């Protein structure tokens, strides 16, 4: 591939001594959708503002298609912006909203009309051109906002929790729409969200952020199965973190771990060096297991029926609260107060470095 669509090098942003961004490096390739995933306050929106040019970093480099953009106004950066609040221009029709970027770029009227027509088709909003934003539903408004940001073929589109204002069912539908539109236009997208399901559904790559840093980056499936540290495991994969007494790495990317007084062999792709924890996802815990499995002696504290599955919270001796997702039919006896045994198969447990403070 050619040069990256977006390249960030050591981006730092401090507000009155508080580090909002603490040295972020990131590359986004053309046509790629990269998600910044993190809890609120992790710096993801600040990063987006810096790329858009609404704010300047305290230090670091930002380049778009190889051009250093730090001294450029937002208008010169060739970026598109989609906000959670849609931010459609209320005094303009859908067609005028879509064509705004082309108009300020002085494209001819005929070209504008043709492009707006294409976009209305692409967004599946036929015949909506003359309507005003207030006449549209939330989902329709967000599609217009998307189209407006894509209309002038920006180098990269920045999206700040664009589906955050939609209700659950509509959100799933819009995720698919967004993915389809992004593919059709092979648009490059930097996407901000705090919703792990959204990140999983949409992303080519996910960058998990915490306290102003990217703490893990990778393809969704890889990051989900092989989290880079305890925070990524907990925040992104909802994993339970079990304390590790000691461990030994071997050449095959595996480790022999002492955990809860037992010895288990498990995967250790992140090859931790210092303190480490054992990450076990809720769905990896079973009612039964063989002698190689890690055995957890626990007391049920809370259960919640989710349909086919039951979410069981337990207190594990020596490890604190642990969450398990069990087959609902298989776990009818799991009432609060019950003493139970759960098993984690070794291939489902991952040794990861403890999260850095």
């Amino acid at each position, binding site marked *: 591939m050619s040069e990256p669509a977006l390249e960030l090098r050591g981006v730092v942003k401090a507000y009155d001594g508080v580090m909002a961004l603490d040295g972020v490096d990131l590359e986004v390739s053309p046509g790629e959708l990269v998600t910044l995933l993190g809890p609120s306050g992790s710096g993801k929106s600040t990063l987006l503002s810096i790329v858009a*040019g609404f704010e300047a970093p305290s230090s670091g480099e930002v380049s778009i298609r190889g051009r250093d953009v730090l001294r450029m106004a*937002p208008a010169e950066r060739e970026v*598109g912006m989609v906000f959670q609040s849609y*931010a459609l*221009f209320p*005094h303009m029709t859908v067609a005028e909203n879509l064509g*705004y970027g082309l108009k*300020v770029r002085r494209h001819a009227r005929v070209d504008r009309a043709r492009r707006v027509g294409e976009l209305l088709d692409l967004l599946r909003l036929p015949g909506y051109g003359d309507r005003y934003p207030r006449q549209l539903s939330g989902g329709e408004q967000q599609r217009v906002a998307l189209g407006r940001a894509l209309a002038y073929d920006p180098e990269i589109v*920045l999206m700040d929790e664009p589906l955050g204002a939609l209700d659950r069912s509509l959100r799933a539908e819009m995720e698919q729409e967004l993915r389809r539109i992004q593919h059709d236009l092979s648009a490059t997208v930097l996407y901000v969200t705090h919703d792990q399901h959204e990140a999983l559904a949409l992303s080519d790559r996910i960058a998990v952020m915490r306290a102003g840093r990217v703490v893990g980056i990778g393809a969704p499936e890889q990051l989900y199965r092989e989290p880079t540290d305890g925070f990524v495991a907990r925040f992104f994969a909802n994993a339970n973190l079990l304390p590790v007494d000691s461990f030994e790495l071997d050449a095959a990317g595996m480790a022999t771990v002492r955990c809860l007084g037992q010895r288990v062999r498990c995967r250790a792709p992140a090859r931790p060096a210092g303190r480490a924890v054992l990450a076990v996802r809720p769905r990896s815990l079973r009612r039964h297991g063989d002698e190689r499995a890690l055995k957890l002696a626990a007391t049920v504290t809370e259960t919640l029926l989710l349909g086919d599955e039951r979410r069981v919270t337990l207190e594990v001796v020596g490890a604190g609260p642990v969450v398990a997702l069990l087959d609902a039919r298989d776990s009818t006896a799991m009432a609060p107060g019950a003493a139970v045994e759960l098993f984690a198969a070794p291939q489902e447990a991952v040794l990861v470095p403890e999260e850095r403070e």
Partner: protein
Amino acid sequence: MAADETVTARRLRRTRTVDRVARTAGVAIATTALVAMLAPVLLTVLVSFSGDDFFAFPPESWGLRQYRELLESPLWGAALQLSFEVAAAVAALSVAIGVPAAYAIQRSRLPGRHALYAAGLTGMVIPIAAFAVALYGLLSQLGLRGTFVGLVLANATLAVPVVLIVITAALSRVPPTLELVAMTAGASRLRASLGITVRLLAPAIVASTGLAFVTSFEEAVLVNFVGGVEQTTLPRAILDSARFGTSPVITAIATLMMAGIGLVAIGSVRLLGRRR
């Protein structure tokens, strides 16, 4: 069974009676209030169509005599013209100050912008008589007392708060993200501000111009302190005429003023309430 029903029916009837009394009382209070507010207005309008050359109610004859006298009198014409000129200048000045100030107060990170807002409203908050005395001193020192400019500045201190309040309220309903989107789409900062935010503020700007105009036009206290002998605005002329003699002509002026100001005020309020 039957006894229970009777009790229920009786209670129901009592509730209905209480409701009916309450409703009648409400209507009576509302009517009294309305009459008390509207009666002087109606009386003024009625008397303005009197054909007499003295105050009397009911008038002994009817006609447009008061209006004719008003139009023919050079005194009233001059007062009306001065009021118009002052009000127009005040409206223009207040909007020129108030709109950028509201923008800075709402959208910038200017230190002390809240203090600026509070200071901007002073003219509206301080008791008018005390304020008039202060203005008298200040404008005298500056040599502006008794001048057109002085009168415009004095009235603007009352009109700027109106503009500030209206524009900051309107601005808070325009999301800052609109301008940010416009800027990423390729618009310069100026174009994004004017083409999006100021464009969306247009109804509020027109409305606040109208309200600033009205504020100055009906101002009747400051002008007595800071205005010179020749600076007889319409409210001042009315005051003078009521003080030195009672001519029914002032009812004609009052009627015209009420109609004009009412129209501007209603128009402004409707503009502000318009749905986007």
